[in-house]
């Protein structure tokens, strides 16, 4: 259960980093901010693209990641859950 939760936390962290950077972030910046290994981050990004939480945007030589509507919704739900837990003494 704990492993699963950690995974959710990492996903939340990645999505938050993207959102806080005006919804457009380079992979290098994401790697630096999310504190993950390159291999791990690639796995997470593939997973998030598959789940349609983020989009990969190619602009010339640069690649960026941005949140989709689903990604925003996931972040909203996640923060609601955290607030719910705090409010209900959990």
């Amino acid at each position, binding site marked *: 259960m704990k492993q699963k939760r950690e995974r959710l936390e990492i996903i939340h962290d990645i999505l938050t980093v993207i959102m806080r950077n005006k919804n457009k972030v380079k992979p290098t910046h994401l790697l630096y901010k999310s504190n993950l290994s390159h291999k791990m981050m690639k796995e997470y990004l593939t997973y998030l693209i598959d789940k349609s939480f983020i989009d990969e945007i190619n602009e010339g030589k640069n690649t960026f990641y941005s949140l989709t509507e689903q990604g925003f919704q996931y972040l909203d739900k996640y*923060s609601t*859950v955290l607030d719910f837990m*705090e*409010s209900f*003494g*959990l």
Partner: protein
Amino acid sequence: MLIPRTITYINTIDTSLKLVALILTAIMFWKAYRMYKLYREQSLMYFTIAFFFFTVGNFFSFIIDVFIYTGIMTKGMLFEIFNLHPVVVLFLAIRLGSLLLGFLYLFFIALGFPKRNVQVAIVLLTIIAGITADIKALFFHLSVTVFTAFVLYDLYLKYKHGRKRAQMLYFMGMAGLYLAYASYALFLFFAPFYWIGHGLEILSYLFFIAALYAVITKNETKARKTRNHT
């Protein structure tokens, strides 16, 4: 001797209040379950289980009433039949056992999750208490009062730390439940306490829903602001 009682509007109010309690706890259970699916934290699981048991308990509470007040039996007959009719005895045991287990899981959260074997022992004792409870269920009401007192104290400490509106609403709801079950225990000595308990119980569940609503609306507003900013 049987003392038949006709179905009165008081019976209808009684049953309606139980239906309202069932709906409110079912809403809480469903919301908690959805959140647990998203964020698999132990405390959230215990909270979901607690409200699952409240829903089951309130469902059987309602079913027993429907069974009694739909003309099959009258309340006077009930006292004769309670110790004889296995279905009524079973339903009553499930109702009391479920409600007690619900409070027990909230109690575990307040205790900070005791060891698994301690939990199993307490759950077994609770089930036995539920099954062996008498009609007036004094032991049941006193146990719930003790559990809610612990939960209340824990919530008070957390509220002092956080001071959020939703925390206060949930705390007030739990305080209402504490008073409701204390009233049910006193109902043996003074009948109107039954109605006071009923009123307080519904009020408590409404406070829970208000706390839930406060959390959801606050986060929706926050999300809207964030998106506009982004």
